[in-house]
């Protein structure tokens, strides 16, 4: 069923075809889990968000009107669940982050990595991903939707409920911040 478009798949879901729902899960469960995990930094919450999103997509399949792409619609649902989880757990999240930062600081101070170690780590992308985690929420979502999920600026704008120019600006500032965080200076001119 892999040659079927998302739009056709969602139409079959709307008709109650379980095989189409399973195919949708095959296509997007991992992507949604990954997207949510990079936002909420908690496996259990991310799994819940991915599950709720796919269940909602299947339940509301009949309401998909193809005015936007299927991915835009699905990620808009996922972003709403991510934001819900931020709202519900903001206090707990702050404490989790401070604990995480303490652990990171402790690990960093226990042994100073050599330049070679840093180069290897940078090559593996872990420095960069930590920098992504530190981006403001909207910049992080925008940059992941842009480059990881391959959405256009118009689609990101629709998913996040903002003008396309704002979405472009989030991505631009995120890239600049990431670039600084891996030790490259800004352009002078």
């Amino acid at each position: 069923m892999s040659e079927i478009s998302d739009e056709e798949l969602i139409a079959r879901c709307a008709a109650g075809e379980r095989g189409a729902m399973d195919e949708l899960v095959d296509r997007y469960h991992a992507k949604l889990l990954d997207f949510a995990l990079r936002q909420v930094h908690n496996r259990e919450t991310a799994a819940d968000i991915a599950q709720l999103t796919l269940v909602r997509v299947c339940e509301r399949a009949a309401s998909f009107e193809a005015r936007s792409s299927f991915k835009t619609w699905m990620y808009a649902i996922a972003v709403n669940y991510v934001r819900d989880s931020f709202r519900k757990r903001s206090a707990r999240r702050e404490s989790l982050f401070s604990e995480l930062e303490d652990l990171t600081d402790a690990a960093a101070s226990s042994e100073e990595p050599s330049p070679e170690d840093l180069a290897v780590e940078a090559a593996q992308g872990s420095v960069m991903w930590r920098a992504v985690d530190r981006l403001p929420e909207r910049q992080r979502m925008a940059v992941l939707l842009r480059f990881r999920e391959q959405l256009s600026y118009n689609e990101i704008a629709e998913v996040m409920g903002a003008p396309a120019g704002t979405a472009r600006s989030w991505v631009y500032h995120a890239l600049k911040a990431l670039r600084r965080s891996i030790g490259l200076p800004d352009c002078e001119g």
Partner: protein
Amino acid sequence: MNCKACESILAEYALGELADDEAALCRAHLEACPACREALAAYTCLIGVIAHEPAAAPTQAEGAAMARALDGVDPHRVPARRTAEPALQGLPAFLAACAAAFVIVAGFAIAVAFRVMSIPVPVGVTGWAGVGIAVTVVVFLTSFVPIAVTARRRPLNGMTFRR
């Protein structure tokens, strides 16, 4: 093209998404500007890492939970009009605000009407203002409250996790 303009479209340039004329301008600037070439190299690397890092795969338990969750899905059971949902979510609060405003305005209006028409009001309760407010409270209870309660009872986000 200056560095700022160039940097604002470097990501699209790196992805090959620019129109030919814009790409040519960007390329010309890059040939003359080592700092922007460095930025392009950094963006290419960043975008590559973000795009190609393998996604977190669902565990067997998460896959099984997902399958169980889908067992309960019935697309025919849910109304198709998704667009009504965001409006409904804020409906009770909106109705409460409307009702509060209505009580205040109507209370004064009715009280003033009683006063202008010189209608005798029962003395000893709270005077003419009390009668006006009492009438509007009755109107509120018989019109707005049932609507608000009905809206609140509708399951808007009633899905549960299935593990």
